[in-house]
């Protein structure tokens, strides 16, 4: 007689633990593209072993085999909702390595698009968080709002989800005039809908009890395990790369870093909501002050275009100036604050056009240990709520 039910035997592990191990694997509605081996004792999670690597695309190695400008669309795929902030970090690394400067107009445009990218990531994460706690309404609203945002991106860069827009030295294209009014209209609609989102999903009694005191990460644990992004700011750690490293022109705008003290999923979700509002505030200030014309790249890049054609620098910058540039021997680092946390790029050049080494540290990989610490002790049904609250993104984790 065939043995039926062998998969249901509880594991008796060393130490006398008696748990059921569940493969929260890539084939699961709310695990993303990564696997966690969850050991459950009744309903309480006792241990979680991560099994990452399902989306490993060898990006760091690929970065060594291509021209440094071809790496921009490559590294954008680390986290497509956050495309601008990721490529900004890489562009910053190349700028520090090659000594390029950025034009003022490009600084303002980078800030506008970078904050839009942050809003895009937060909407993406909030939508996934909502569907993971069961609210399909929140999911559709967040992605509906994001639909409007990607149309703005298409207006600026020609592509909805993969703008490939930040270049070392500046940006690739300039937004048309309609962009400025439409962004203001979008921000108005966004703030109204985010209020509704908070009321329907987060302040909803069912959603509130799903998120309150779930996945508690204390401030000491968050600091010790080096959490980043809303995972850290939701536990009371006041760290934001835009404030600490003062890159770009973030110092010129008036904005606050959003910090909550709860340490649970509710705090992390509220950090995201607050950051959306702060990003809207920054974008409004930047839209007022952004110069409507001017060179899109800095002097050192524009210098590479022949003087007779330098008036048309905004059209020619795409390939001519940068494709013939070699990376000097040396290293450069770029750090930006993406929606999910801090992106770190470390580029080593060796005199040729291919980088010698690109080292990437992404927020999801950084948050893995902190998230596992938050998982342990929670109930099985809390795992989606915690996973969504950290804004975990496996393609970024595995690079």
């Amino acid at each position, binding site marked *: 007689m065939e043995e039926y039910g062998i998969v249901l035997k509880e594991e008796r592990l060393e130490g006398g633990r008696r748990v059921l191990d569940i493969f929260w694997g890539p084939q699961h509605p*709310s695990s993303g593209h990564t696997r966690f081996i969850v050991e459950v004792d009744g309903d309480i999670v006792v241990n979680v072993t991560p099994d990452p690597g399902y989306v490993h695309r060898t990006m760091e190695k690929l970065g060594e085999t291509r021209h440094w400008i071809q790496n921009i669309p490559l590294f954008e795929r680390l986290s497509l909702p956050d495309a601008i902030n990721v490529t900004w970090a890489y562009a910053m690394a190349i700028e520090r390595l090659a000594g390029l400067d950025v034009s003022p107009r490009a600084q303002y445009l980078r800030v506008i698009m970078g904050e839009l990218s942050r809003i895009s990531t937060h909407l993406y994460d909030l939508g996934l968080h909502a569907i993971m706690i069961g609210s399909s309404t929140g999911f559709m609203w967040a992605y509906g709002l994001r639909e409007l945002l990607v149309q703005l991106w298409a207006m600026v860069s020609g592509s909805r989800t993969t703008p490939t827009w930040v270049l070392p030295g500046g940006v690739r294209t300039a937004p048309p005039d309609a962009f400025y009014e439409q962004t203001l209209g979008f921000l108005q609609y966004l703030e109204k809908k985010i209020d509704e989102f908070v009321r329907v999903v987060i302040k909803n009694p069912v959603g509130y009890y799903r998120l309150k005191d779930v996945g508690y990460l204390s401030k000491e644990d968050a600091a010790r395990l080096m959490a980043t992004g809303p995972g850290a700011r939701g536990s009371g750690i006041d760290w934001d790369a835009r404030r600490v490293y003062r890159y770009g022109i973030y110092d010129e705008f008036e904005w606050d870093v959003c910090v909550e003290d709860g340490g649970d999923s509710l705090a992390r979700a509220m950090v995201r909501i607050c950051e959306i509002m702060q990003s809207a505030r920054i974008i409004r200030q930047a839209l007022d002050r952004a110069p409507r014309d001017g060179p899109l790249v800095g002097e050192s890049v524009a210098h590479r275009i022949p003087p007779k054609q330098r008036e048309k620098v905004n059209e020619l910058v795409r390939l001519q100036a940068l494709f013939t540039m070699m990376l000097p021997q040396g290293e450069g680092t770029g750090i930006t604050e993406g929606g999910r946390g801090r992106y770190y790029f470390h580029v080593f050049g060796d005199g040729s056009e291919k980088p010698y080494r690109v080292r990437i540290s992404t927020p999801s990989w950084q948050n893995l240990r902190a998230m596992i610490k938050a998982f342990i002790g929670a109930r099985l049904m809390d795992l989606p709520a915690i996973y969504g609250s950290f804004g975990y993104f496996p393609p970024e984790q595995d690079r």
Partner: protein
Amino acid sequence: MDLWGLLFSARLWFFVLMLVASGIVLLTVVWFERKAAARVQMRVGPYHVSPWLGGYLQLLADAFKFIISEPIVPRGAHKLLFTWGPPLFVTLAFGASLLLPLTPELRLIKDPNLLPYGLVFSLVVLLLVSIAIVIIGWSVNNKFAYVGAAREALLVAAYELPLVLSVLAMFILYGTLDPLKIVEKQSILVGAMLNPFAFLVYLVATAMATARFPFEIADYEGDVATGPYSDYGGVFLVLSFAGGTYYATFSYSFLASLLFLGGWNLPGFAVGGWPQDILGHLVLAAWVMFKTLVLMFFFAFLRAAMPVLRLDHTLALGWRGLLILGVAAVLWSTALKLAGL
């Protein structure tokens, strides 16, 4: 055999009407669920199958697609329980509504003295549906289905007692178990207004029993990957996930429309006997089905508004809040009865 007598038998008409009406009610409710949720969520909903009807026939297209799919039985699943689980589920869920009367004459139980037993048995059969869900979860031989079935068993312990208490409260209030007399007694005020505690408890317990949001816990997609139904596909899925849970909601709503919403009471409409006044009986049947439909609309709309509550919060709700409210409902009914209602 008397052919005309057979053709006009109230039993036959009841059975056919229930099949047809429940099918139409299910179609409408699923359409409403998808369309209303879509409109709330800034999208269109079912559109392409019958655009001139607003996508109403989408469920037929989906059911057809499921039925013609290859039914796969996983290796290692308990074959008997796997294949017979869904039909058992939908039979129990629909069979509960066959024990109730649709109008004073249209009912499956011929002897009016046996009608009280029909009412009680209908509730019992509905509570047995949860066993069918546990059977389904067990037979799949899959850890997620096992966890889902365990959750369903825990939930049964939470909602069963408040549900029985609310129905008991209504029986105390009416003083009788005969559904015909119960509907008669609701001619001035419907049961929901006479005992709102019982109605509230019944609504929440039904939502728990039939996996309506915010209590879609046993077959929660985010966690146990639709739990007991996770390895079902094809006709099994139509029978269990789409058919069984909605038929259970239908039966619960039908019972509620008799106990709480006044049944076939239509002011100013007197109905004759059967088969003299077929049209009158059909009108009353449509009225009862309409009440059932409205109640099911309420359950369906919850999907658009609510996330899903966690298991231990739901169990706490069932054992604390609902139980207290159920006891309050019984006390309220007793007080009303003693006051001479």
